[in-house]
C-alpha cells in the first residue's frame, strides 16, 4: 500500500526541522513516501462536538483524497494525526451520513484509509531490533527524556496505538539508538498547549515542572512528536532553556542523526538553545547500550537486569 505523507500547516513552516529530518529518516530506512498532491487543513484540534460530523469535513476531505489514489496516510504532527484518525472513527460511526458528506465533498469515501504515525511505522514495520542495526552514529552522550504529550495516544479506543498510561515506544526507540533513556514522572503530563497564547504564567509553571523533573532525573534532551510541546518547552522553559541545561528535539532529528544522515538534513536549525555543542559531545561519547549488538527489549534496562538476576540468586 502506498504511503502518502500529509505535512499539515506547521511542518513546512514553524516545524521545518521536523519535516526535513523525518524525510531524511524515511529515506535512510527505505520507507517510501509521497507527499500528497492536494491537501487542506486537518481541522487542527479535534472538535469535541462528536454529534455534528459536518464539523469534521476538513480531515475527511484529506482522507478522501488519499482514498482516490488508494493508499494510506502518514503524518508527523500529532495534531494532524489525532484529528485525522478520530475523524475517520467518527465517520465510520455514522454510516447514514456518508452519502450527504460524499455528495458535498464530491467523493466516495468509505472511512477505510489507514492513518499512521511515523512512530507506529518504526515500531511495527521497521522494528527496533532492525533499527538498532542501522544505527551509524550511536547517541551515546545523550540522556533522553521522552515526552508524550496529550494527542499521540489519547483517546485510546480511537487512536489504539499504545497504552496512554504506560507507553514505551519512544523509550524503546532511543534505547535502540544507543542513547541513555531517562525515566521521570512527568513524561505524560500536559505541556500547557494553547494556554500559552493566553496565560503565560501558567504555561511557564507547567513547562517548568516537566523540564525540572526531566533535568533532575539526569536528562539533557527532551524529545517530542509535537510542534506545540516543542514550542512551549523552548519558549517557556525559562532558565533551563536559557542556560542550555536541557534541549528540545523532535524524535526525528535525533533519529536522522543516529542513522547517519547529513547534518544539514537532520533539522537542528530552529532551536532556541545551542544544540550543536550538545550534538558534538553526544556523538563523541561511546554508546550507552551498544546499539546494534543488543536487542532493545521491553521496559527499562533496569527491569531487564533484575529479571535476569532472579534465577541466579536462587541457584547461588
Amino acid at each position, binding site marked *: 500500500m502506498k504511503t502518502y505523507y500529509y505535512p499539515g500547516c506547521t511542518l513546512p513552516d514553524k516545524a521545518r526541522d521536523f519535516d526535513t529530518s523525518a524525510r531524511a529518516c524515511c529515506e535512510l530506512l527505505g520507507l517510501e513516501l509521497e507527499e500528497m498532491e492536494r491537501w487542506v487543513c486537518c481541522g487542527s484540534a479535534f472538535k469535541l462536538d462528536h454529534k455534528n460530523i459536518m464539523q469534521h469535513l476538513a480531515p475527511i476531505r484529506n482522507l478522501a483524497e488519499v482514498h482516490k489514489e488508494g493508499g494510506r496516510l502518514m503524518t508527523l504532527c500529532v495534531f494532524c494525526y489525532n484529528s485525522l484518525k478520530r475523524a475517520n472513527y467518527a465517520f465510520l460511526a455514522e454510516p447514514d451520513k456518508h452519502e450527504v458528506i460524499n455528495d458535498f465533498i464530491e467523493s466516495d469515501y468509505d472511512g477505510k484509509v489507514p492513518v499512521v504515525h511515523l512512530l507506529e511505522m518504526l515500531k511495527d514495520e521497521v522494528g527496533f531490533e532492525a533499527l538498532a542495526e542501522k544505527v551509524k552514529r550511536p547517541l551515546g552522550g545523550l540522556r533522553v527524556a521522552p515526552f508524550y504529550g496529550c494527542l499521540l495516544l489519547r483517546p485510546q479506543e480511537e487512536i489504539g496505538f499504545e*497504552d496512554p*498510561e*504506560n507507553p514505551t515506544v519512544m523509550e524503546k526507540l532511543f534505547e535502540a539508538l544507543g542513547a541513555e533513556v531517562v525515566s521521570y*514522572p*512527568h513524561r*505524560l503530563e500536559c505541556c500547557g498547549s494553547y494556554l500559552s497564547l493566553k496565560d503565560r504564567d501558567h504555561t511557564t509553571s507547567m513547562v517548568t515542572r516537566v523540564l525540572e*523533573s526531566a533535568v533532575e532525573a539526569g536528562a539533557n534532551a527532551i524529545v517530542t512528536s509535537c510542534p506545540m510541546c516543542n514550542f512551549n518547552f523552548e519558549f517557556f522553559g525559562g532558565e533551563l532553556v536559557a542556560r542550555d541545561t536541557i534541549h528540545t528535539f523532535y524524535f526525528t532529528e535525533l533519529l536522522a542523526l543516529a542513522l547517519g544522515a547529513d547534518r544539514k538534513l537532520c533539522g537542528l536549525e530552529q532551536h532556541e538553545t545551542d544544540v550543536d555543542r550538545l550534538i558534538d559531545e553526544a556523538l563523541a561519547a561511546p554508546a550507552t547500550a551498544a546499539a546494534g549488538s543488543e536487542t532493545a527489549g521491553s521496559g527499562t534496562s533496569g527491569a531487564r537486569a533484575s529479571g535476569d538476576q532472579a534465577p541466579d540468586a536462587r541457584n547461588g
Partner: protein
Amino acid sequence: MRRIGVFCCWCGSNIAGVLDLDLVLQEAGKLPGVVHAEYYKYFCSQPGQDMIEEAIRDNELDGVVIAACSPGMHEGTFRKAAERAGMNRFQLEIVNVREQCSWVHQLDKEAATEKAIRLIAAMVEKTKQNEPLTPGTAPVVQRALVIGAGISGMQAALDIADGGREVVLVEKEPSIGGHMAQLSETFPTLDCSQCIMTPRMVEVAQHENIRLMTYSNVEEVTGSVGNFHVKIRTKAAYVDRDTCTGCGLCIEKCPAKAPSEFSRGLETRKAIYVNSPQAVPNQPVIDAEHCMYLTDGKCGVCKKVCEIGAIDYEQTDRMEEIDVGAIVVATGYDLYEQENFPEFGGGEIPDVIDGLQFERLNSASGPTQGRILRPSDGEEPKQIVFIQCCGSRDPENGVAYCSRICCMYTGKQAMLYKHKVHDGQAYVFYMDIRAGGKGYEEFIQRGIEETNTIYFRGRVSRLYRENGKVMVSGVDTLSGETIEIPADMVVLATAILPSRGAAEVADKLNIPTSDSGFFAEAHVKLRPVETQRRGIFLAGCGQAPKDIPDSVAQAGCAASKALGLLASRTLTTEAQVAVVDEERCAACGMCVTACPYGSRTLDEERNVAEVDESLCEGCGACVAACLNKACELKNLTSRQISTMLGEL
C-alpha cells in the same frame, strides 16, 4: 365429559368494583363443561375455602377454575382446599383477573368484563385437558458441603453442624479464615479480627459434625438436590498433617523462601509454611514450586529435623468422593490487582499498597509487628493518602458496581493510622461516602472529628515518585482546587472481585453468575441465598461484596435453608415437569443446552433426550428450544396452549 366449577372472587371491591361479575358468572355458566359457577366476597377466607370444598363434593367436580388474584398469592391455598375435597391439586387453575384485569382496566369496565370472560373461557378449556399429576420423591443425604472456609463458610458450617447435620467444609488454602484472618481491627467497633475469629476457627476444627478438608478443591459435582455426588481433590502437602504436631521446627530450619501470600508480598515465608501463627490447622504444607528438595533433589532439611517423621516427599494428591444433600458456596472475594492502575504506578511503586496490605502492616502478627512502616525504607509515614473507588464504580477501567466495604475500611484505616502515628496526617480521596450500616455513619464522623482525617471529594489522576515521596495529584471537586500531596505512603481501596476461580466453581456446580461475575441468587429480593439450582445456597462475598456482619448473617440464612432441606429424609420434586415424545426426538441436544437446571441429558445409546424429573423446574426453556416439538411440559402442552389461544 369433564365437570368444571368456576369461582369468581370479588376480592372486596378490587375485582367486583370493576368487573360486572353477574355477567361474568352468567357467561361462565354457559361454557361447555361448566356445571357450577358462583361468586363470593373473599374465596381465600375460611368460609370461602369451605364453599369451594363443598361445591366440589356436591357437584362431583373434576376440575376447578378460580378467577381471582395472581397465582403467586393463593394458588397453594386453593389447591390445598381442592385436595381436602378429594381432587388432584393439579386439576385446579387460577385466572388472574385482578392484577392482569381489574387493576389495569379500571377506566373501561365493559372491556374489562369482556376480557375476564375470555380469560376464564380459555382457562376452562385448559383445565379440561389437565391430567392429575403426582410429584415424585427423592431421598435426601443427611450431609452438607460448604465450599470456602472464610468467615461465611465457617459460620454456615457451624450453624448446620449445630443443627445436627454433618458438614464437609472444603477450603483451598492450607488453613481456614479467609480474608478476615488477614485483617487487623474491624469496623465499626474496632475489635481485633484475630481475637474474635480464632475461637471460631478452633470451634470449626473441633466440632464433631464438621469434617474439615483444607488444601482441597471440589473437582466435580454431579447428581441433584438431596443427592449430590462430589469429587474432592486434596493437594499433596508433602507433610502427613494427621501425625504432624505443628511444632514448627521444620519451618525454622527451611532455607528456601518465597513471597508470603498471606502478607500479600510484604514479607517472605519459607517453602514449608503455615500462613500465620494462629493458623488452623497449624500443620504446615510444602510449596513444591519453591522447595529445594522437590525441585532439585537437594536439601531435605525438614525431613531430617522432623522427629516424628511427618515429612513425606512422595505424597501425591488424594481424591475422595462424598455424597451430600445440600451445598453452600462461600468462596468469597479477591482484590482487583494494582497492575491495573498504570496511572498509580501499576504496582511498581513500593509505597503504594492496597487495603489488605495495610491490614497486614497494622496487624500484630504482620511483617512489622503492627507498626505502620512504609515498605520502601521502613520509615514511619507522616503523611498518608487513602484513595477510594480504585476500579469500583468505573465501568471503563474497572467494574461498574460499588464495592460497598471500602468507604468503611478506609475510614477505619485512617483512624487506626492516627492511633499509631500521633503526629501523622491522613487524607482520603472519595467519590461519595457510603456508610449505610448500623453505626457506620457515626463511625465515619468519629474518624473525621477525633483523628482529624481530611476528606477530599474527588479523584486522583496520577501517583509518581519524586524525592523519595509518592506525589499525589488530585482534585477537590468541592472547592475546585487541584491538590498535590507529597505523601509518604498511599493506600488504594481496590475493587472487590469474585474470588479467582469463581467462574470455574459456577461451572462445576452449574449455577449462573451475574454480569459482575458474582454468583447469581434465584431472586434478588425474595430468594437471596438460593441459586437457580435447588439445594445450592450462597453465603458471603461470593454473592456480592459485603462486610463481616452481612456475611455472617447471610451465612446463617444459607445454613437455615440447608437445614430446612436436610430436615426431611425425602423431598418432593416438581410435578409439572417436561416430558419427551421419544418418537419425535432427534437427540439434537438443543434441550440440554437450553436447560438452566442441568436436568436434560442425552441417552446416547437409545438416541433420545431424557428428563431428570428431580432436577426439572418446569420452566419450559427446553420446550421452546426443541425444533421437533418433541418436548412438552405436563399440563401446559402445545395443544392446551393453542386451545387457550382459540378462546381468547
